[in-house]
Protein backbone atom coordinates (compact mmCIF):
# COMPACT_ATOMS: atom_id res chain seq x y z
CA UNK A 1 0.00 0.00 0.00
CA UNK A 2 2.94 2.26 0.76
CA UNK A 3 3.99 1.96 -2.90
CA UNK A 4 0.67 3.16 -4.20
CA UNK A 5 0.62 6.08 -1.77
CA UNK A 6 4.33 6.84 -2.20
CA UNK A 7 4.61 6.98 1.59
CA UNK A 8 5.87 4.93 4.51
CA UNK A 9 3.26 2.92 6.37
CA UNK A 10 3.53 2.23 10.09
CA UNK A 11 1.25 0.05 12.20
CA UNK A 12 0.09 1.47 15.50
CA UNK A 13 -1.03 -0.48 18.56
CA UNK A 14 -4.70 -1.32 18.46
CA UNK A 15 -7.27 0.72 20.37
CA UNK A 16 -10.80 -0.28 21.38
CA UNK A 17 -13.73 0.88 19.30
CA UNK A 18 -15.36 3.73 21.27
CA UNK A 19 -18.51 2.33 22.89
CA UNK A 20 -20.54 5.50 22.21
CA UNK A 21 -20.30 4.76 18.49
CA UNK A 22 -22.37 1.60 18.94
CA UNK A 23 -25.88 1.76 17.47
CA UNK A 24 -27.70 -0.83 19.54
CA UNK A 25 -30.83 -0.83 17.35
CA UNK A 26 -28.78 -1.71 14.30
CA UNK A 27 -26.03 -3.73 15.97
CA UNK A 28 -23.51 -1.66 14.00
CA UNK A 29 -20.99 1.08 14.74
CA UNK A 30 -21.40 4.65 13.58
CA UNK A 31 -18.20 5.20 11.63
CA UNK A 32 -18.21 9.00 11.82
CA UNK A 33 -18.03 8.80 15.63
CA UNK A 34 -15.07 6.41 15.45
CA UNK A 35 -13.30 8.78 13.06
CA UNK A 36 -13.75 11.64 15.53
CA UNK A 37 -12.27 9.51 18.30
CA UNK A 38 -9.30 8.51 16.11
CA UNK A 39 -8.42 12.15 15.42
CA UNK A 40 -7.24 12.47 19.02
CA UNK A 41 -4.69 9.72 18.40
CA UNK A 42 -2.90 10.97 15.28
CA UNK A 43 0.90 10.80 15.81
CA UNK A 44 2.71 14.06 15.13
CA UNK A 45 4.72 12.71 12.18
CA UNK A 46 1.72 11.03 10.52
CA UNK A 47 0.19 12.47 7.36
CA UNK A 48 -2.88 10.24 7.55
CA UNK A 49 -4.37 7.77 9.99
CA UNK A 50 -6.22 4.65 8.85
CA UNK A 51 -8.30 2.56 11.22
CA UNK A 52 -9.18 -1.07 10.49
CA UNK A 53 -11.97 -2.76 12.40
CA UNK A 54 -13.80 -6.05 12.41
CA UNK A 55 -17.05 -4.36 13.37
CA UNK A 56 -19.78 -3.67 10.86
CA UNK A 57 -19.96 0.06 10.16
CA UNK A 58 -22.81 2.34 9.20
CA UNK A 59 -23.84 5.94 9.06
CA UNK A 60 -27.35 6.92 10.11
CA UNK A 61 -28.71 7.29 6.60
CA UNK A 62 -27.10 4.16 5.08
CA UNK A 63 -27.63 0.52 6.02
CA UNK A 64 -23.88 -0.06 5.96
CA UNK A 65 -20.58 1.38 4.75
CA UNK A 66 -17.35 -0.44 3.90
CA UNK A 67 -15.48 2.47 5.34
CA UNK A 68 -15.53 6.20 5.81
CA UNK A 69 -13.05 9.00 5.37
CA UNK A 70 -12.86 12.72 5.95
CA UNK A 71 -12.61 14.09 2.41
CA UNK A 72 -9.44 16.16 2.42
CA UNK A 73 -8.94 15.40 6.09
CA UNK A 74 -6.70 13.14 8.16
CA UNK A 75 -8.55 10.03 9.24
CA UNK A 76 -10.16 7.10 7.46
CA UNK A 77 -11.63 3.82 8.64
CA UNK A 78 -12.31 0.50 6.95
CA UNK A 79 -14.40 -2.42 8.16
CA UNK A 80 -13.51 -6.05 7.48
CA UNK A 81 -17.04 -7.23 8.29
CA UNK A 82 -18.50 -7.07 4.80
CA UNK A 83 -15.26 -7.81 3.01
CA UNK A 84 -15.21 -11.36 4.36
CA UNK A 85 -16.55 -14.11 2.11
CA UNK A 86 -18.26 -15.68 5.13
CA UNK A 87 -20.49 -12.60 5.44
CA UNK A 88 -22.11 -13.81 2.24
CA UNK A 89 -22.23 -17.47 3.33
CA UNK A 90 -19.10 -18.43 1.40
CA UNK A 91 -15.88 -20.18 2.44
CA UNK A 92 -13.30 -17.88 4.02
CA UNK A 93 -10.63 -16.68 1.58
CA UNK A 94 -7.81 -14.89 3.37
CA UNK A 95 -5.81 -13.68 0.30
CA UNK A 96 -9.03 -12.28 -1.23
CA UNK A 97 -9.90 -10.60 2.08
CA UNK A 98 -6.46 -8.97 2.27
CA UNK A 99 -6.71 -7.74 -1.30
CA UNK A 100 -10.16 -6.28 -0.61
CA UNK A 101 -8.84 -4.64 2.57
CA UNK A 102 -5.90 -3.18 0.64
CA UNK A 103 -8.22 -1.74 -2.04
CA UNK A 104 -10.73 -0.35 0.45
CA UNK A 105 -7.94 1.18 2.53
CA UNK A 106 -6.43 2.87 -0.52
CA UNK A 107 -9.89 4.05 -1.53
CA UNK A 108 -10.69 5.62 1.84
CA UNK A 109 -7.21 7.12 2.18
CA UNK A 110 -7.68 8.48 -1.35
CA UNK A 111 -10.63 10.46 0.01
CA UNK A 112 -8.41 11.94 2.72
CA UNK A 113 -6.21 13.23 -0.11
CA UNK A 114 -9.27 15.08 -1.39
CA UNK A 115 -10.14 12.60 -4.12
CA UNK A 116 -13.77 11.97 -5.00
CA UNK A 117 -15.06 8.90 -6.82
CA UNK A 118 -13.39 8.32 -10.15
CA UNK A 119 -15.37 7.34 -13.27
CA UNK A 120 -12.61 4.94 -14.38
CA UNK A 121 -13.31 1.33 -13.36
CA UNK A 122 -9.60 0.52 -13.35
CA UNK A 123 -9.02 3.14 -10.66
CA UNK A 124 -9.20 2.27 -6.99
CA UNK A 125 -11.28 5.43 -6.48
CA UNK A 126 -14.12 3.97 -8.55
CA UNK A 127 -17.31 3.86 -6.46
CA UNK A 128 -18.04 0.51 -4.85
CA UNK A 129 -21.02 -0.39 -2.75
CA UNK A 130 -20.68 -4.18 -3.07
CA UNK A 131 -17.76 -6.60 -2.78
CA UNK A 132 -18.27 -7.39 -6.46
CA UNK A 133 -17.51 -3.71 -7.18
CA UNK A 134 -14.48 -3.94 -4.90
CA UNK A 135 -13.20 -7.05 -6.69
CA UNK A 136 -13.72 -5.72 -10.21
CA UNK A 137 -12.24 -2.26 -9.83
CA UNK A 138 -8.50 -1.67 -10.12
CA UNK A 139 -6.05 -1.93 -7.23
CA UNK A 140 -4.19 1.32 -7.77
CA UNK A 141 -4.89 4.96 -8.55
CA UNK A 142 -5.37 5.97 -12.17
CA UNK A 143 -2.93 8.49 -13.55
CA UNK A 144 -5.12 11.50 -12.74
CA UNK A 145 -5.89 10.44 -9.17
CA UNK A 146 -2.26 9.46 -8.58
CA UNK A 147 -1.16 12.97 -9.54
CA UNK A 148 -3.43 14.37 -6.83
CA UNK A 149 -2.04 11.96 -4.20
CA UNK A 150 1.54 12.66 -5.30
CA UNK A 151 1.01 16.40 -5.04
CA UNK A 152 -0.15 15.90 -1.45
CA UNK A 153 2.58 13.48 -0.36
CA UNK A 154 5.15 15.72 -1.96
CA UNK A 155 6.53 12.94 -4.13
CA UNK A 156 6.32 12.44 -7.87
CA UNK A 157 6.61 8.89 -9.09
CA UNK A 158 9.44 8.51 -11.56
CA UNK A 159 9.12 6.69 -14.86
Amino acid at each position, binding site marked *: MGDCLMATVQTMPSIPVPPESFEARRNQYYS*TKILKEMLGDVPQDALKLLGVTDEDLCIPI*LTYVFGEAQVGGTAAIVSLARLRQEHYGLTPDRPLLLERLRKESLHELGHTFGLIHCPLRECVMYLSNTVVDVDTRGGDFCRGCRTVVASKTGTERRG
Partner: protein
Amino acid sequence: MTMEKKVNIMVVDDEEIVRASLTSWLEEDGYRVEAVESGRKALELLPQRNWDLMLVDLKMPGMDGIQLMDEVHKTAPEMLVIIMTAYATVDTAVKAMKKGAYDYFVKPFNPDDISLTIRKIVDHHKLVRENLFLRKELRKQYKLRDMISKNEKMLEIFELARTVAKSSSTVLIQGESGTGKELLARAIHDESPRMDAPFITVSCASLTESLLESELFGHEKGAFTGATVLHRGKLELAKDGTLFLDEIGDISLKLQMDLLRVLEEREFRRVGGSELIPINSRIIAATNRDLAAAIEEERFRADLYYRLNVISIHIPPLRERREDIPLLVDHFIEKFNIEMGKEIRGISEGAVRILMSNDWPGNARELRNVIERAVVVAKGNIVTEADISLPSVPSGADHRTKSLEEIEKAHIRVVLNENQWNIVRSAHALGIDRVTLYNKIKKFGLKKEGVAPKE
Protein backbone atom coordinates in the same frame (compact mmCIF):
# COMPACT_ATOMS: atom_id res chain seq x y z
CA MET B 1 -11.27 11.79 -13.24
CA THR B 2 -13.11 15.07 -13.38
CA MET B 3 -16.83 15.26 -13.86
CA GLU B 4 -17.87 17.62 -16.63
CA LYS B 5 -20.45 19.48 -14.57
CA LYS B 6 -21.05 19.17 -10.87
CA VAL B 7 -24.44 17.74 -10.08
CA ASN B 8 -26.30 19.88 -7.56
CA ILE B 9 -28.24 18.03 -4.91
CA MET B 10 -30.38 19.62 -2.21
CA VAL B 11 -31.01 17.59 0.93
CA VAL B 12 -33.98 18.60 3.08
CA ASP B 13 -34.25 16.87 6.44
CA ASP B 14 -34.98 18.11 9.95
CA GLU B 15 -32.48 15.68 11.49
CA GLU B 16 -28.99 17.15 11.70
CA ILE B 17 -27.35 13.72 11.68
CA VAL B 18 -29.07 12.73 8.44
CA ARG B 19 -28.08 15.96 6.76
CA ALA B 20 -24.46 15.60 7.85
CA SER B 21 -24.01 11.95 6.92
CA LEU B 22 -25.86 12.18 3.61
CA THR B 23 -23.94 15.30 2.66
CA SER B 24 -20.52 13.81 3.32
CA TRP B 25 -21.42 10.54 1.63
CA LEU B 26 -22.73 12.30 -1.51
CA GLU B 27 -19.75 14.64 -1.59
CA GLU B 28 -17.45 11.64 -1.75
CA ASP B 29 -19.22 10.82 -4.97
CA GLY B 30 -18.38 14.25 -6.34
CA TYR B 31 -21.79 15.88 -6.01
CA ARG B 32 -22.33 19.42 -4.86
CA VAL B 33 -24.59 19.13 -1.85
CA GLU B 34 -26.49 21.69 0.18
CA ALA B 35 -28.50 20.53 3.17
CA VAL B 36 -31.29 22.46 4.89
CA GLU B 37 -33.55 21.60 7.78
CA SER B 38 -36.96 22.77 6.59
CA GLY B 39 -39.23 23.20 3.60
CA ARG B 40 -39.15 26.95 4.11
CA LYS B 41 -35.34 27.03 3.89
CA ALA B 42 -35.48 24.74 0.87
CA LEU B 43 -37.78 27.13 -0.97
CA GLU B 44 -35.43 29.99 -0.18
CA LEU B 45 -32.53 28.03 -1.60
CA LEU B 46 -34.39 26.87 -4.68
CA PRO B 47 -33.83 29.88 -6.97
CA GLN B 48 -30.15 30.22 -6.03
CA ARG B 49 -28.83 27.33 -8.05
CA ASN B 50 -29.70 24.96 -10.88
CA TRP B 51 -30.64 21.98 -8.77
CA ASP B 52 -30.52 18.60 -10.42
CA LEU B 53 -32.14 16.66 -7.62
CA MET B 54 -33.81 17.11 -4.25
CA LEU B 55 -33.73 14.50 -1.49
CA VAL B 56 -36.63 15.40 0.76
CA ASP B 57 -37.62 13.90 4.09
CA LEU B 58 -41.31 13.01 4.28
CA LYS B 59 -41.97 13.81 7.93
CA MET B 60 -40.82 17.26 8.94
CA PRO B 61 -42.35 19.75 11.35
CA GLY B 62 -44.22 22.52 9.51
CA MET B 63 -44.23 21.76 5.81
CA ASP B 64 -43.91 18.03 5.13
CA GLY B 65 -42.01 16.49 2.21
CA ILE B 66 -45.01 16.14 -0.08
CA GLN B 67 -46.19 19.69 0.57
CA LEU B 68 -42.68 20.90 -0.18
CA MET B 69 -42.56 18.87 -3.39
CA ASP B 70 -45.88 20.44 -4.45
CA GLU B 71 -44.51 23.91 -3.78
CA VAL B 72 -41.28 23.18 -5.66
CA HIS B 73 -43.17 21.80 -8.65
CA LYS B 74 -45.17 25.01 -8.88
CA THR B 75 -42.07 26.94 -9.90
CA ALA B 76 -39.87 24.09 -11.12
CA PRO B 77 -42.18 21.44 -12.60
CA GLU B 78 -39.24 19.44 -13.95
CA MET B 79 -37.49 19.08 -10.59
CA LEU B 80 -36.66 15.52 -9.64
CA VAL B 81 -37.60 14.85 -6.03
CA ILE B 82 -36.75 11.72 -4.06
CA ILE B 83 -38.82 11.30 -0.91
CA MET B 84 -37.04 9.82 2.12
CA THR B 85 -38.86 8.41 5.06
CA ALA B 86 -38.17 6.41 8.18
CA TYR B 87 -41.64 4.90 8.16
CA ALA B 88 -42.23 2.55 5.30
CA THR B 89 -45.92 2.66 4.62
CA VAL B 90 -47.20 1.71 1.23
CA ASP B 91 -49.81 4.46 1.42
CA THR B 92 -47.35 7.30 1.73
CA ALA B 93 -45.09 5.76 -0.89
CA VAL B 94 -47.95 5.57 -3.36
CA LYS B 95 -49.05 9.07 -2.46
CA ALA B 96 -45.54 10.46 -2.98
CA MET B 97 -45.11 8.75 -6.34
CA LYS B 98 -48.57 9.83 -7.49
CA LYS B 99 -47.75 13.39 -6.54
CA GLY B 100 -44.77 13.25 -8.84
CA ALA B 101 -41.83 12.01 -6.77
CA TYR B 102 -39.10 10.43 -8.86
CA ASP B 103 -38.42 7.74 -6.28
CA TYR B 104 -39.04 6.79 -2.68
CA PHE B 105 -36.41 5.64 -0.20
CA VAL B 106 -36.78 4.14 3.23
CA LYS B 107 -34.18 5.24 5.78
CA PRO B 108 -31.56 3.95 6.21
CA PHE B 109 -30.86 3.45 2.52
CA ASN B 110 -28.92 0.69 0.94
CA PRO B 111 -25.91 2.62 -0.42
CA ASP B 112 -26.09 0.71 -3.67
CA ASP B 113 -29.72 1.69 -4.30
CA ILE B 114 -29.17 5.37 -3.80
CA SER B 115 -25.98 5.61 -5.80
CA LEU B 116 -27.54 3.70 -8.69
CA THR B 117 -30.59 5.93 -8.63
CA ILE B 118 -28.52 9.10 -8.61
CA ARG B 119 -26.28 7.76 -11.38
CA LYS B 120 -29.40 7.08 -13.42
CA ILE B 121 -30.60 10.62 -12.88
CA VAL B 122 -27.22 12.08 -13.75
CA ASP B 123 -27.07 10.03 -16.97
CA HIS B 124 -30.59 11.10 -17.80
CA HIS B 125 -29.63 14.73 -17.28
CA LYS B 126 -26.59 14.29 -19.46
CA LEU B 127 -28.80 13.01 -22.24
CA VAL B 128 -31.23 15.87 -21.82
CA ARG B 129 -28.37 18.37 -21.95
CA GLU B 130 -26.87 16.65 -24.97
CA ASN B 131 -30.24 16.69 -26.65
CA LEU B 132 -30.66 20.40 -25.94
CA PHE B 133 -27.18 21.05 -27.28
CA LEU B 134 -27.84 19.10 -30.47
CA ARG B 135 -31.14 20.85 -30.98
CA LYS B 136 -29.38 24.17 -30.58
CA GLU B 137 -26.74 23.09 -33.08
CA LEU B 138 -29.44 22.10 -35.53
CA ARG B 139 -31.20 25.38 -35.04
CA LYS B 140 -27.91 27.12 -35.77
CA GLN B 141 -28.08 25.88 -39.35
CA TYR B 142 -31.17 27.85 -39.73
CA LYS B 143 -33.34 28.50 -42.68
CA LEU B 144 -35.66 31.40 -43.16
CA ARG B 145 -37.65 30.53 -46.25
CA ASP B 146 -35.07 30.69 -49.06
CA MET B 147 -32.32 32.02 -46.83
CA ILE B 148 -29.87 29.78 -45.08
CA SER B 149 -27.09 30.57 -42.63
CA LYS B 150 -25.35 29.47 -39.50
CA ASN B 151 -23.78 32.85 -38.84
CA GLU B 152 -24.77 34.29 -35.46
CA LYS B 153 -25.62 37.70 -36.90
CA MET B 154 -27.69 36.19 -39.67
CA LEU B 155 -29.54 33.98 -37.21
CA GLU B 156 -30.36 37.06 -35.19
CA ILE B 157 -31.66 38.66 -38.37
CA PHE B 158 -33.83 35.62 -39.09
CA GLU B 159 -35.18 35.80 -35.57
CA LEU B 160 -35.86 39.51 -35.92
CA ALA B 161 -37.50 38.98 -39.33
CA ARG B 162 -39.89 36.41 -37.87
CA THR B 163 -40.87 38.81 -35.11
CA VAL B 164 -41.20 41.76 -37.44
CA ALA B 165 -43.31 39.70 -39.84
CA LYS B 166 -46.13 39.62 -37.32
CA SER B 167 -46.37 43.43 -37.28
CA SER B 168 -47.06 45.94 -40.04
CA SER B 169 -44.07 48.15 -39.27
CA THR B 170 -42.00 49.56 -42.09
CA VAL B 171 -38.66 47.79 -42.48
CA LEU B 172 -35.44 49.14 -43.93
CA ILE B 173 -33.00 46.50 -45.13
CA GLN B 174 -29.45 47.58 -45.79
CA GLY B 175 -26.63 45.55 -47.20
CA GLU B 176 -24.31 45.20 -50.17
CA SER B 177 -25.77 44.02 -53.44
CA GLY B 178 -26.24 40.30 -53.62
CA THR B 179 -26.58 39.80 -49.87
CA GLY B 180 -30.21 38.79 -50.20
CA LYS B 181 -32.18 41.91 -49.34
CA GLU B 182 -35.08 40.95 -51.57
CA LEU B 183 -35.02 37.36 -50.30
CA LEU B 184 -35.29 38.67 -46.77
CA ALA B 185 -38.13 41.00 -47.72
CA ARG B 186 -39.95 38.08 -49.32
CA ALA B 187 -39.29 35.94 -46.27
CA ILE B 188 -40.79 38.60 -44.02
CA HIS B 189 -43.81 38.71 -46.34
CA ASP B 190 -44.14 34.92 -46.41
CA GLU B 191 -43.90 34.70 -42.64
CA SER B 192 -46.48 37.44 -42.13
CA PRO B 193 -50.28 37.28 -42.00
CA ARG B 194 -50.12 39.00 -45.42
CA MET B 195 -48.59 35.92 -47.03
CA ASP B 196 -51.63 35.29 -49.24
CA ALA B 197 -51.74 38.90 -50.47
CA PRO B 198 -49.39 40.13 -53.24
CA PHE B 199 -45.68 40.85 -52.81
CA ILE B 200 -44.90 43.70 -55.18
CA THR B 201 -41.38 44.80 -56.05
CA VAL B 202 -40.41 48.20 -57.37
CA SER B 203 -36.83 48.59 -58.47
CA CYS B 204 -36.32 52.29 -57.91
CA ALA B 205 -32.89 52.53 -59.54
CA SER B 206 -33.94 51.32 -62.97
CA LEU B 207 -36.55 53.98 -63.70
CA THR B 208 -36.52 57.68 -64.45
CA GLU B 209 -38.22 59.99 -62.01
CA SER B 210 -41.45 60.39 -63.96
CA LEU B 211 -41.66 56.70 -64.84
CA LEU B 212 -41.07 55.74 -61.24
CA GLU B 213 -43.75 58.14 -60.11
CA SER B 214 -46.30 56.58 -62.41
CA GLU B 215 -45.02 53.10 -61.56
CA LEU B 216 -45.57 53.77 -57.86
CA PHE B 217 -48.73 55.82 -57.83
CA GLY B 218 -50.28 54.91 -61.19
CA HIS B 219 -51.98 57.47 -63.35
CA GLU B 220 -55.42 58.43 -64.58
CA LYS B 221 -56.34 58.13 -68.22
CA GLY B 222 -55.15 61.30 -69.94
CA ALA B 223 -52.92 62.38 -67.08
CA PHE B 224 -50.13 63.03 -69.56
CA THR B 225 -49.35 62.46 -73.20
CA GLY B 226 -49.46 58.75 -73.86
CA ALA B 227 -51.54 57.98 -70.79
CA THR B 228 -54.30 56.45 -72.81
CA VAL B 229 -55.63 54.12 -70.18
CA LEU B 230 -55.94 54.17 -66.40
CA HIS B 231 -52.86 52.62 -64.86
CA ARG B 232 -52.82 51.31 -61.32
CA GLY B 233 -49.51 51.84 -59.54
CA LYS B 234 -47.62 49.34 -57.47
CA LEU B 235 -48.85 51.00 -54.26
CA GLU B 236 -52.35 50.11 -55.33
CA LEU B 237 -51.46 46.65 -56.60
CA ALA B 238 -49.82 45.73 -53.33
CA LYS B 239 -53.27 45.95 -51.69
CA ASP B 240 -53.05 44.18 -48.32
CA GLY B 241 -49.70 42.64 -49.20
CA THR B 242 -46.15 43.94 -49.11
CA LEU B 243 -44.60 46.65 -51.25
CA PHE B 244 -40.88 46.16 -51.63
CA LEU B 245 -39.03 49.33 -52.65
CA ASP B 246 -35.63 48.17 -53.82
CA GLU B 247 -32.73 50.63 -54.16
CA ILE B 248 -34.62 53.29 -52.24
CA GLY B 249 -31.36 55.23 -51.93
CA ASP B 250 -31.52 56.01 -55.64
CA ILE B 251 -34.79 57.94 -55.83
CA SER B 252 -34.92 61.65 -56.49
CA LEU B 253 -35.51 64.22 -53.76
CA LYS B 254 -38.92 65.05 -55.21
CA LEU B 255 -40.06 61.44 -55.10
CA GLN B 256 -38.63 61.15 -51.63
CA MET B 257 -40.94 63.92 -50.54
CA ASP B 258 -43.95 62.32 -52.23
CA LEU B 259 -43.15 58.99 -50.67
CA LEU B 260 -42.74 60.56 -47.25
CA ARG B 261 -46.17 62.15 -47.51
CA VAL B 262 -47.70 58.87 -48.58
CA LEU B 263 -46.07 57.02 -45.71
CA GLU B 264 -47.25 59.60 -43.23
CA GLU B 265 -50.80 59.90 -44.49
CA ARG B 266 -51.21 56.28 -45.55
CA GLU B 267 -53.09 57.44 -48.65
CA PHE B 268 -52.21 58.74 -52.12
CA ARG B 269 -53.60 59.96 -55.44
CA ARG B 270 -52.86 58.53 -58.87
CA VAL B 271 -50.96 60.97 -61.10
CA GLY B 272 -53.54 63.30 -62.55
CA GLY B 273 -56.23 61.96 -60.25
CA SER B 274 -58.15 63.44 -57.33
CA GLU B 275 -59.42 60.33 -55.56
CA LEU B 276 -57.55 59.49 -52.33
CA ILE B 277 -56.62 55.85 -52.24
CA PRO B 278 -55.77 54.33 -48.86
CA ILE B 279 -52.67 52.23 -48.37
CA ASN B 280 -53.03 48.95 -46.52
CA SER B 281 -49.80 47.32 -47.55
CA ARG B 282 -46.67 46.93 -45.44
CA ILE B 283 -43.65 48.69 -46.87
CA ILE B 284 -40.19 47.22 -46.92
CA ALA B 285 -37.41 49.32 -48.39
CA ALA B 286 -33.89 48.24 -49.24
CA THR B 287 -30.69 49.85 -50.32
CA ASN B 288 -27.04 49.04 -50.81
CA ARG B 289 -26.13 52.66 -50.27
CA ASP B 290 -24.95 54.20 -47.05
CA LEU B 291 -28.05 56.26 -46.29
CA ALA B 292 -26.43 58.02 -43.34
CA ALA B 293 -23.75 59.35 -45.68
CA ALA B 294 -26.39 60.25 -48.29
CA ILE B 295 -28.22 62.30 -45.63
CA GLU B 296 -24.95 64.10 -44.78
CA GLU B 297 -24.57 64.94 -48.45
CA GLU B 298 -28.22 66.01 -48.60
CA ARG B 299 -29.01 63.43 -51.25
CA PHE B 300 -31.47 61.69 -48.99
CA ARG B 301 -34.12 63.22 -46.75
CA ALA B 302 -33.51 62.53 -43.10
CA ASP B 303 -37.25 62.58 -42.35
CA LEU B 304 -37.89 59.87 -44.96
CA TYR B 305 -35.02 57.87 -43.57
CA TYR B 306 -36.51 57.93 -40.09
CA ARG B 307 -39.94 57.07 -41.47
CA LEU B 308 -38.52 54.02 -43.28
CA ASN B 309 -36.06 53.02 -40.61
CA VAL B 310 -38.65 51.86 -38.07
CA ILE B 311 -37.14 48.41 -38.08
CA SER B 312 -33.59 48.40 -39.37
CA ILE B 313 -31.89 45.27 -40.65
CA HIS B 314 -28.34 45.22 -41.91
CA ILE B 315 -27.30 42.07 -43.77
CA PRO B 316 -23.57 41.40 -43.42
CA PRO B 317 -21.61 40.72 -46.61
CA LEU B 318 -20.63 37.14 -47.41
CA ARG B 319 -16.94 37.76 -46.67
CA GLU B 320 -17.91 38.51 -43.06
CA ARG B 321 -19.68 35.18 -42.73
CA ARG B 322 -17.44 32.80 -44.61
CA GLU B 323 -18.75 29.90 -42.53
CA ASP B 324 -21.88 30.16 -44.67
CA ILE B 325 -20.02 29.51 -47.92
CA PRO B 326 -20.01 25.68 -47.68
CA LEU B 327 -23.61 25.77 -46.49
CA LEU B 328 -24.68 28.00 -49.39
CA VAL B 329 -22.70 25.89 -51.85
CA ASP B 330 -24.58 22.75 -50.79
CA HIS B 331 -27.83 24.66 -50.87
CA PHE B 332 -27.20 25.95 -54.41
CA ILE B 333 -25.98 22.57 -55.69
CA GLU B 334 -29.17 20.99 -54.41
CA LYS B 335 -31.25 23.74 -55.98
CA PHE B 336 -29.56 23.49 -59.38
CA ASN B 337 -29.65 19.69 -59.28
CA ILE B 338 -33.41 19.98 -59.16
CA GLU B 339 -33.63 22.78 -61.74
CA MET B 340 -31.26 21.13 -64.21
CA GLY B 341 -32.03 17.51 -63.45
CA LYS B 342 -28.41 16.89 -62.46
CA GLU B 343 -27.11 14.54 -59.80
CA ILE B 344 -24.14 16.39 -58.35
CA ARG B 345 -23.37 14.81 -55.01
CA GLY B 346 -20.92 17.32 -53.61
CA ILE B 347 -17.90 19.49 -54.11
CA SER B 348 -14.18 18.73 -53.82
CA GLU B 349 -12.14 20.08 -50.93
CA GLY B 350 -9.92 22.04 -53.29
CA ALA B 351 -12.93 23.73 -54.86
CA VAL B 352 -14.30 24.66 -51.43
CA ARG B 353 -10.90 26.13 -50.56
CA ILE B 354 -10.99 28.36 -53.61
CA LEU B 355 -14.51 29.48 -52.81
CA MET B 356 -13.64 30.12 -49.18
CA SER B 357 -10.68 32.31 -50.01
CA ASN B 358 -12.59 34.54 -52.40
CA ASP B 359 -13.87 37.89 -51.14
CA TRP B 360 -17.23 37.70 -52.94
CA PRO B 361 -17.86 41.36 -53.73
CA GLY B 362 -21.11 40.22 -55.33
CA ASN B 363 -21.97 38.22 -52.21
CA ALA B 364 -24.30 35.20 -52.18
CA ARG B 365 -25.73 36.08 -55.58
CA GLU B 366 -22.27 35.92 -57.11
CA LEU B 367 -21.60 32.62 -55.35
CA ARG B 368 -24.88 31.30 -56.69
CA ASN B 369 -23.89 32.22 -60.23
CA VAL B 370 -20.50 30.55 -59.84
CA ILE B 371 -22.17 27.37 -58.55
CA GLU B 372 -24.76 27.47 -61.30
CA ARG B 373 -22.00 27.52 -63.88
CA ALA B 374 -20.07 24.81 -62.02
CA VAL B 375 -23.11 22.54 -61.95
CA VAL B 376 -23.58 23.06 -65.69
CA VAL B 377 -19.97 22.29 -66.62
CA ALA B 378 -19.25 19.56 -64.03
CA LYS B 379 -18.43 16.32 -65.83
CA GLY B 380 -18.67 13.89 -62.93
CA ASN B 381 -20.97 13.97 -59.95
CA ILE B 382 -18.59 16.10 -57.91
CA VAL B 383 -17.85 19.77 -58.53
CA THR B 384 -14.07 20.13 -58.74
CA GLU B 385 -11.61 23.03 -58.91
CA ALA B 386 -11.74 22.87 -62.69
CA ASP B 387 -15.45 23.65 -62.64
CA ILE B 388 -15.01 26.78 -60.59
CA SER B 389 -14.55 29.96 -62.54
CA LEU B 390 -14.26 33.09 -60.50
CA PRO B 391 -14.73 36.45 -62.16
CA SER B 392 -11.65 37.72 -60.36
CA VAL B 393 -8.57 36.09 -58.90
CA PRO B 394 -7.83 37.10 -55.31
CA SER B 395 -4.81 39.15 -56.41
CA GLY B 396 -7.15 42.04 -57.09
CA ALA B 397 -6.35 42.29 -60.77
CA ASP B 398 -9.97 42.55 -61.74
CA HIS B 399 -11.60 45.80 -60.77
CA ARG B 400 -14.90 45.44 -62.47
CA THR B 401 -17.09 45.18 -59.41
CA LYS B 402 -14.97 47.21 -57.07
CA SER B 403 -15.47 50.76 -55.85
CA LEU B 404 -12.63 53.26 -55.88
CA GLU B 405 -12.30 52.79 -52.14
CA GLU B 406 -11.98 49.02 -52.46
CA ILE B 407 -9.26 49.42 -55.07
CA GLU B 408 -7.45 51.88 -52.83
CA LYS B 409 -7.64 49.45 -49.92
CA ALA B 410 -6.41 46.53 -52.03
CA HIS B 411 -3.57 48.62 -53.46
CA ILE B 412 -2.42 49.81 -50.03
CA ARG B 413 -2.47 46.21 -48.80
CA VAL B 414 -0.33 45.10 -51.76
CA VAL B 415 2.21 47.89 -51.23
CA LEU B 416 2.40 47.24 -47.48
CA ASN B 417 3.01 43.56 -48.08
CA GLU B 418 5.64 44.33 -50.72
CA ASN B 419 7.46 46.45 -48.17
CA GLN B 420 7.04 43.99 -45.28
CA TRP B 421 4.77 46.57 -43.62
CA ASN B 422 7.55 49.10 -43.36
CA ILE B 423 5.43 52.25 -43.01
CA VAL B 424 8.03 54.77 -44.18
CA ARG B 425 8.91 52.79 -47.32
CA SER B 426 5.26 52.00 -48.06
CA ALA B 427 4.20 55.63 -47.64
CA HIS B 428 7.02 56.68 -49.97
CA ALA B 429 5.97 54.13 -52.59
CA LEU B 430 2.38 55.33 -52.35
CA GLY B 431 3.42 58.96 -52.57
CA ILE B 432 1.69 59.92 -49.32
CA ASP B 433 3.01 60.83 -45.89
CA ARG B 434 3.33 58.48 -42.95
CA VAL B 435 0.40 59.90 -40.98
CA THR B 436 -1.93 59.61 -43.97
CA LEU B 437 -0.89 55.99 -44.42
CA TYR B 438 -1.52 55.28 -40.73
CA ASN B 439 -4.94 56.85 -41.02
CA LYS B 440 -5.76 54.80 -44.08
CA ILE B 441 -4.59 51.57 -42.42
CA LYS B 442 -6.88 52.40 -39.52
CA LYS B 443 -9.75 53.40 -41.77
CA PHE B 444 -9.59 50.25 -43.86
CA GLY B 445 -8.85 48.05 -40.87
CA LEU B 446 -5.77 46.61 -42.59
CA LYS B 447 -3.85 44.06 -40.59
CA LYS B 448 -0.44 42.53 -41.03
CA GLU B 449 -1.09 38.97 -42.16
CA GLY B 450 1.92 36.59 -42.15
CA VAL B 451 3.38 38.63 -45.04
CA ALA B 452 2.59 36.50 -48.04
CA PRO B 453 5.03 36.14 -50.93
CA LYS B 454 3.87 37.86 -54.07
CA GLU B 455 1.92 35.76 -56.48
